[in-house]
């Protein structure tokens, strides 16, 4: 393991009966970077993380964390890790301060409780029962509990799922802060924009396998597309799209969106306007954008991330 690699996973495999939840996954997480597992629900992201967090055993494969080869993540390793679970709760009748105090007691080098409460902006809610906290406040408390030991490696499993935009941005800023202090972060998400905004390195998972790996920019560049034009599919029949195949690299029609990929924006725009006039179709809500991770996933699997 090189100096810059904090964790390396080789051929990780986990079965549930006949289902291969994780199927020979290998990757390396560098120091002070945000490493993202991106994929649809059921892709195997959470199982992979649960093995690395030490709450599930892998059937096969090797894990190397902080320079130590492990069959199973042990308690000494957990002293240096922080974990934010996708689904996790606290005792509803504990106060926020009591939760942090309790979690601080599990670690040898815990930060002061008041400092943690302040860091996750819960000082005013310190004496509020968990059951009376809002969804965003509960998530901040969970982050506080996960970071109470100043971890070197942090796992964030779907940290923004179900949160409102404000709470989501709060989580993003926590991730940015952690990264700036040299902490390595392993993140899972099925939000493409989240992966793009936060990640240094993205692994795309589908059906238990890694299907692509690289920085968001590298992955998008692999598509060899320059531009994507999208417009609302209101009133557009499949037959209407046939003439467009002549001018454009790829034409896809989703339920509510027609997507046209092109290397020659000017020519394609001209063709599209003509097509629109001929068929009296409005090109409503038309946008022109660069390819993103969603397009990468679509081109690799033929499916959208949230299908």
């Amino acid at each position, binding site marked *: 393991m090189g100096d810059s690699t904090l964790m390396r996973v080789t051929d990780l495999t986990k079965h549930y009966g006949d289902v291969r939840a994780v199927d020979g996954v290998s990757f390396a997480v560098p120091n002070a970077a945000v490493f993202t597992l991106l994929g649809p629900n059921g892709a195997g992201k959470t199982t992979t993380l649960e093995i690395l967090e030490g*709450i599930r055993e892998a059937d096969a494969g090797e894990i190397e964390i902080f320079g130590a080869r492990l069959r199973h993540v042990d308690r000494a390793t957990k002293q240096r890790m922080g974990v934010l*679970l996708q689904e996790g709760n606290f005792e509803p*009748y*504990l106060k926020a301060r009591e939760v942090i105090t*309790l*979690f601080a*007691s*599990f670690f040898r080098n815990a930060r002061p409780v008041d400092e943690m409460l302040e860091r996750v902006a819960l000082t005013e809610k310190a004496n509020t029962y968990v059951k009376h906290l809002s969804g965003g406040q509960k998530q901040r408390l969970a982050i506080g509990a996960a970071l109470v030991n100043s971890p070197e490696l942090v796992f964030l499993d779907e940290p923004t799922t179900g949160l409102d935009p404000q709470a989501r941005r709060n989580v993003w800023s926590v991730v940015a802060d952690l990264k700036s202090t040299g902490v390595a972060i392993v993140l899972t998400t099925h939000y493409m924009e989240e992966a793009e905004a936060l990640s240094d390195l993205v692994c795309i998972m589908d059906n238990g396998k890694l299907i692509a790996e690289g920085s968001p920019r590298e992955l998008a560049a692999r598509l060899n597309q320059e531009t994507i034009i999208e417009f609302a599919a209101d009133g557009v029949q499949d037959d209407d799209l046939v003439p467009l195949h002549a001018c454009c690299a790829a034409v896809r029609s989703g339920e509510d969106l027609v997507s046209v990929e092109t290397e020659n924006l000017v020519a394609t725009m001209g063709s599209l306007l003509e097509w629109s006039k001929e068929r009296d179709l409005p090109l409503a809500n038309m946008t022109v954008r660069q390819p993103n991770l969603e397009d990468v996933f679509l081109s690799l699997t033929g499916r959208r991330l949230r299908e």
Partner: protein
Amino acid sequence: MNDVLLLARTHILTALRERVTLFWFLVFPVFLLVILSLIFGQIGQQGEITFDVSLVNFDASTTSVFSGMIEGVFENLAQSDTADEEPLFALRHPEADEDLASFLAAELTAVRRGRRAAVIVIPEGFGHEIERRVVSSGAPGGSSSTDDLPLTLYYSEGNAASNMAVSIIKQVLAGVNREILARSGRFDRTIAIEASSTWVGSESGGTVYVDFLLPGIILMGFFTNSLFGIPGAILFSRDQRVLRRYWVTPLSVPRYLGGLSIGHLALCALQFGILLVVGRFGLGSTVSFASLSAALHLLLAAATFMAFGFLIASLAQTANAGMAVANILNMPMMFLSGLFFPITGLPVFIRAIVYVNPVTYLADGLRAAVGVESGVFPTALVIAVPLGWIALSTGVASWRLRWDVAR
């Protein structure tokens, strides 16, 4: 504070802050102690309870004195000695011109419906039969049992008052029997062995019902606290993924269990303290738990029930299933143990349950340790059976209990 103690504090705080738990944990045992003491504490104090009993004499026209004597005895008991005392029996007779058979039929219906405690029937020829027995060789002198009197008693087995009335009637008849034998010269009163049973409290002479009840209620508190509290704490935390948050930290299962156990025992101690205060200062209990034996019995009880809680947690797939199992076991295990009432005269198959039930031995042992009863079972058994349950429960629990949600 270290993690184990903080986990113990967490268990205590969450139990005391949740109203439902608080009710079952504290309010209900105190309520039961007060209610049962107020209702049943009066039994045995003379004249406070009157049993409705009917007497039908089919032998009234006889020349023998015995039928009239029996009737006279019960009529006597149906009168009070002083104005402010209720008599032991309220005795009903058929009217002068009433048909005895139809009166009997109506009274038997009344017994079945719980309106009458018992019916005493003196059959035709009763007096002459007694005379024959006293005079002839087949005299009742061999035994003073009331079974030898051809009287018929009707009562309802499922009715506590009825059972109580019948046992009093039998005692009265045994007295009559002895009197007859004495008078006929077959029973020497001076050499007869008199047996009397008296409850002896540790400080006062007679034990009141609250002294019998208090150890039972304390055990009930421990029992329900463990039966619901332990599986509740583990299974709800597991199903709600509270435990998962612990398992991603360096916290180990043994340390979690240590915290839970200390918290649970502290709750038992609190429960014990409150029940003791209510029993002593509210209900006048004199029973003392201040002995090493009593303390060890209480600890054994708390440990046994706690292990039982772990067993239930390991048998249930979900928290709700765990609560259902606890509910199913709760009532039979409590009531078939002598916790609230002495176990006497139970059918054999129920007694079998009583004898495998650890609560039986713990109740017996604790009552003996605090001196309200002499104790039916030998000390070795009182300790061995609960220890056996602890071994069995922890064995099964450590094999079966899952600490994370199933995938």
